[in-house]
């Protein structure tokens, strides 16, 4: 008898505690958002995204004002080492352990393409800022992801078009040998041929290559007018530096840095980088709002760097995500959040007004910049002047050309 009542009491206790657990779990779910920043923290793109992307995400959480309204927003970040398998494992782990509902940054196209698939499968959200491949809104588009900042098409369409139209009608590519480099070369080739130019050849280099002399010599002997660098980050900096060493520009060839970030300009220094044209969706010194955002950011990162367009995109995309979740109320239904995000116009301090298309492409103006001469630079990080502002509708791939199955034509 005694035994039975004890057992009963124990059962009752267990039920009661399980019940309270259930209640608290439900309460927590009600007002909790879990944000995951998945990026390159230590490799060649570490300055493009990296720890700066985490800072940008933290700023978006604070600026959203949702903390004051009783929301709990968790931020987690990790290094995917530019490896698709590492990125996929982290993504699965975060989803399965309930650590992330939304994935930010996703630098490196190969990682983004892999995580994109998992996010779709598990009905979460991917807001891709770092990766470039235009396939992310093409044949690999997904109802659970938005390609936020830029893509290989917009880069090609801006820098590639400007240089071809200015008389650079024969091209040779030095291409990073993976998804991103190939997509950038492909999209630039399309733009070059559409504008009356032709492509003579290409030379591949692996990601994180130190020595480009072999590729640059091939470019030199090709006699192409333009040498297109379809690479990024430290690879771009190294290839530009070595192109100067081998006298490519002195020989009358023009360099086209198809994807260059402000941190690359900083790393190269103005004497080596001056005169280069490059394309960005965000430049910190555009207007008062971008300057304010950039200065706030700069104070919070270790080396006082200004934000890259990738980091600005992380901020911008998370602000918009949080707006959508706030309007929907607590939910982790990824597809529903993304379709709400598509329905709302975007507006934030870093990237201004814009909108999101059916195929998941975020649309905003794109800026063709030119690196200043050392004598023109008046203050720290005063690196570029705006050559042209290209409206979003013109910069990005038209919906009519999209291979995305989500697009109703």
């Amino acid at each position, binding site marked *: 008898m005694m035994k039975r009542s004890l057992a009963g009491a124990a059962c009752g206790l267990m039920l009661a505690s399980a019940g309270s657990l259930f209640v608290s779990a439900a309460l927590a779910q009600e007002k909790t958002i879990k944000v995951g920043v998945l990026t390159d923290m230590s490799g060649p793109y*570490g300055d493009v995204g990296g720890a700066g992307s985490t800072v940008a995400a933290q700023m978006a959480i604070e600026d959203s004002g949702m903390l004051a309204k009783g929301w709990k927003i968790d931020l987690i970040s990790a290094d995917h080492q530019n490896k698709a398998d590492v990125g996929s494992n982290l993504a699965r782990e975060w989803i399965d352990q309930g650590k992330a509902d939304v994935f930010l940054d996703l630098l490196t196209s190969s990682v983004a393409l892999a995580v994109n698939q998992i996010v779709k499968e598990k009905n979460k959200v991917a807001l891709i800022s770092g990766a470039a491949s235009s396939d992310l809104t093409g044949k690999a588009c997904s109802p659970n992801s938005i390609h936020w900042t830029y893509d290989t098409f917009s880069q090609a369409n801006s820098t590639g078009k400007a240089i071809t139209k200015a008389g650079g009608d024969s091209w040779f590519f030095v291409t990073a040998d993976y998804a991103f480099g190939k997509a950038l070369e492909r999209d630039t080739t399309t733009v070059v041929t559409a504008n009356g130019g032709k492509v003579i050849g290409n030379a591949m280099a692996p990601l994180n290559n*130190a020595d480009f002399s*072999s590729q640059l*010599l*091939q470019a030199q002997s090709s006699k192409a007018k333009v040498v297109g660098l379809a690479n990024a980050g*430290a690879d771009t900096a190294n290839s530009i530096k070595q192109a100067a060493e*081998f006298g490519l520009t002195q020989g009358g060839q023009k360099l086209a840095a198809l994807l260059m970030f402000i941190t690359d300009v*900083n*790393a190269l220094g103005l004497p080596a980088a001056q005169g280069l044209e490059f394309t960005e969706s965000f430049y910190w010194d555009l207007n008062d709002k971008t300057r304010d955002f950039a200065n706030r950011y700069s104070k919070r990162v270790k080396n006082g760097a200004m934000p890259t367009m990738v980091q600005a995109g992380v901020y911008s995309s998370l602000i918009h995500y949080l707006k959508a979740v706030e309007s929907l109320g607590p939910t982790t239904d990824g597809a529903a959040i993304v379709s709400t995000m598509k329905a709302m116009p975007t507006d934030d301090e870093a990237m201004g007004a814009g909108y999101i298309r059916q195929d998941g492409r975020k649309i905003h103006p794109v800026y063709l910049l030119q690196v200043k001469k050392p004598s023109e630079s008046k203050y720290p990080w005063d690196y570029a002047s705006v050559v042209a502002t290209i409206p979003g509708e013109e910069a990005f791939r038209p919906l009519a050309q999209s291979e995305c199955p989500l697009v109703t034509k």
Partner: protein
Amino acid sequence: MIPLLGITTQALFAQLLVGLINGAFYALLSLGLAVIFGMLNIVNFAHGALYMMGAFFAWFLLNALHIGYWPALVLAPLGVAIFGMIVERTMLTRLQGLDHIYGLLLTFGLALIIQGLFQNYFGSSGQPYPVPELLKGGANLGFMYLPNYRAWTIVFSLAVCLLTWFAIEKTRLGAVLRAATENPQLTRAFGVNVPRLITLTYGFGVGLAALAGVLAAPIYQVRPLMGADLIVVVFAVVVIGGMGSIMGSIVTGFALGLIEGLTKVFYPQAANTVVFVVMALVLLVKPAGLFGRKA
């Protein structure tokens, strides 16, 4: 111009020369590793980090103290060597007589810490370092445009390599050094201060790494991971050459630079792996490496 397998002989010569330049770096780095392993029996995984420190030392001299390339070529290796000797005296010396794996783990850990510290401070994209005024420009060789600086790296590193080989294999100092490795007790009985000799040798090996770093600074971005990217290849070079063999590492360094250069032309996708393919093949045929003493 005779086309050969799809490329002209001109282009082939150019690629061979470029390969040789890369080989110069491999040789200089693997030489330091070989000296340290051959004399001290330490597998120095911190070599890449020390190479990077050499480059940053030169960068620091230029930007903080306005000391240019030529003094840096002496000062940076000295500075980094002193750091290396402190490491040897305070840490590595405690591992004497233990299995190789302890030294390997310690130096690997050190490399991660050093690289992490630099990355924390400088970020990943690094800093620019200009080519010295005297070596700017280049010469047109007919088959390629050779930047003066690259020509300099080849000549200079070859000279350093041969001098090192001569000092260790052909001089009295080298003989004492080899004796100290072979039989420390007996060498001590002859009145030689063996621990100091070992510290100085480690310092010398580290200095070679830093020297390669200074040489590399004007070519590559000076960045925290510049050594980490290179060290694996350099280890492969040492293994192919025969662990601890001085001449082996020099010859293999240049040879692998050439092989890599050729691969970049004929099958660029394999350029990163060709070194390891060669390593596997060599180990299958000659497990002690091409110039290894023990079978």
